[in-house]
């Protein structure tokens, strides 16, 4: 036994010595040189940039127009060294925040530390946006067509959806394939509301309940002119203590009373042509229990999808500017399946179709002027959901036309 140990020890020492000896001066120089180059890459710096948008909208049913400075977002980023950096986005919505009034809001869209593991993988920690859908990650106004964000990516995928947690991002060596995996705080079912899906259950970094957790994952494949992505989210929606949850007859714990979201999309870009399709589905199997616990009217199933086609009319001019004409059709149903009455009541207005036709003019890639018309059609209103209507209420119309004009920038 002693001999064996001695042999292993001597072998180890010899190997270490050999290894040290085989590191030539030239190799030492290489390392030194690389280190100095890394210094170049990792020069400390602070970056300030941002994006914003403003719009005008005319509602033909209400005969009402409105205009708003929709968003002004300030990015601040700082690179500590080649491996660690910080990113943040602070957003002011609708131009003004006044205490106690229904006005705008200030929020953090992102604030996270990024740790580069190597040239193909990194970690983020903090308030970040998981890779779900198309728009959630890439929500700058210059990067999507239409003054309004796609309805499906507002109501089914609640973009811009950010939570606190840790994310791992990477890309494959062998294929044009990207992947991500994230763990974050879960949604809060107490804040879910009828008509907005899971949107109002987001904590957005603000004192989130963290007894419940969520995971999200995505795989993106980019062959040639295509880009395919599937992503998923699963998380608990009750962040209460067991005692609190039990009193409401809800399941608590990390993944208690879970909600699931699955999404798939494909994008195509080739010269002046661009197209995208997306489908997303929310499954909330315990919606009936939540409806009883909080007197809500939530659906078990909600889904939506859209298809968009665009053409850059200036592509062949070989100029910096582009003029994209586009058409987008969206279909969504926020109560595709509802718990049996009286635990759930069907609302036809949440079954919607939207046809958006418009133009995006980008004189430079960082500035956009947009105009579009959105034709909206919904199912009929359910009289059982209309409680104490005001005497001057107009009859519900299942068709509407919205005219939108907007500007946007990013830098």
């Amino acid at each position, binding site marked *: 036994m002693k001999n064996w140990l001695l042999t292993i020890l001597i072998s180890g020492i010899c190997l270490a010595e050999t290894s040290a000896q085989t590191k030539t001066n030239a190799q030492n120089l290489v390392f030194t040189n690389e280190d100095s180059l890394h210094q170049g890459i990792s020069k400390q710096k602070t970056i300030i940039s941002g994006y914003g948008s403003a719009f005008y909208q005319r509602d033909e049913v209400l005969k009402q127009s409105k205009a708003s400075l929709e968003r002004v977002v300030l990015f601040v980023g700082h690179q500590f060294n080649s491996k660690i950096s910080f990113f943040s986005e602070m957003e002011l919505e609708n131009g003004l925040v006044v205490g106690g009034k229904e006005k705008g809001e200030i929020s953090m869209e992102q604030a996270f530390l990024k740790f580069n593991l190597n040239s193909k993988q990194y970690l983020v920690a903090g308030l970040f946006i998981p890779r779900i859908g198309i728009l959630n990650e890439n929500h700058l106004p210059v990067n999507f067509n239409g003054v309004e964000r796609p309805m499906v990516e507002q109501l089914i995928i609640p973009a811009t959806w950010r939570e606190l947690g840790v994310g791992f991002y990477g890309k494959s060596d062998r294929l*044009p394939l990207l992947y991500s995996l994230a763990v974050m705080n879960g949604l809060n079912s107490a804040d879910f509301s009828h008509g907005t899906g899971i949107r109002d259950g987001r904590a957005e970094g603000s004192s989130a309940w963290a007894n419940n957790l969520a995971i999200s994952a995505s795989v993106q494949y980019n062959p040639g002119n295509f880009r395919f992505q599937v992503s998923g989210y699963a998380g608990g929606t009750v962040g209460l203590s067991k005692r609190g949850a039990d009193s409401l007859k809800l399941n608590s714990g990390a993944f208690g009373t879970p909600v699931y979201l699955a999404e798939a999309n494909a994008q195509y870009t080739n010269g002046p042509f661009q197209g995208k399709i997306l489908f997303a589905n929310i499954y909330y199997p315990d919606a009936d229990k939540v409806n009883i616990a909080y007197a809500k009217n939530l659906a078990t199933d909600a889904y939506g999808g859209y298809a968009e086609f665009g053409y850059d009319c200036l592509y062949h001019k070989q100029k910096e500017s582009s003029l994209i004409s586009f058409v987008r059709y969206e279909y969504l149903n926020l109560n595709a399946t509802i718990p049996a009455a009286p635990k759930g009541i069907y609302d036809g207005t949440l079954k919607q179709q939207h046809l958006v036709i418009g133009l995006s003019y980008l004189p430079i890639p960082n500035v956009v002027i947009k105009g579009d018309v959105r034709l909206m059609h919904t199912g009929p209103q359910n009289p059982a959901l209309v409680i104490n209507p005001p005497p001057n209420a107009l009859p519900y119309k299942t068709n509407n036309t919205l005219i939108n004009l907007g500007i946007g920038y990013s830098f």
Partner: protein
Amino acid sequence: MATATAFLLLPTLDGCSPSSSIFQTSVNPGGIIEVPENQIKDTKLKIIRPAGWQYDIALHKKEDGSLAALLLRCTHMDNQLAQASGGYICHLHGSRFNMDGKVIKGPAEKNLESFPVSKDNNGNILIVVKNFS
């Protein structure tokens, strides 16, 4: 259906075959990356990964046969770029660059940083990164 899909995708995978997509190397003492010519013989794009770097370099063969070496670092907030249709994309804020490194979608405003490329007498491709900052 599966066959049709494969037929649709295969032509678009040029340059992405498992054996040729990434070339891992190091920077020599002179601040030069050497790439054997055969690495880009049968493909229009080679991703060069210098040891220890946080960013890859895209070695791109242009239509006229000339070579360009682009640092795959977003000029907006320094995030790593990924290959996407007709170029490169930054997933942090959605900036896009074409194969020549030119900005085609903001928020980035500057084109990708490029390195001088030449060839030595042995036909090796030399990417000069010594003045990189």
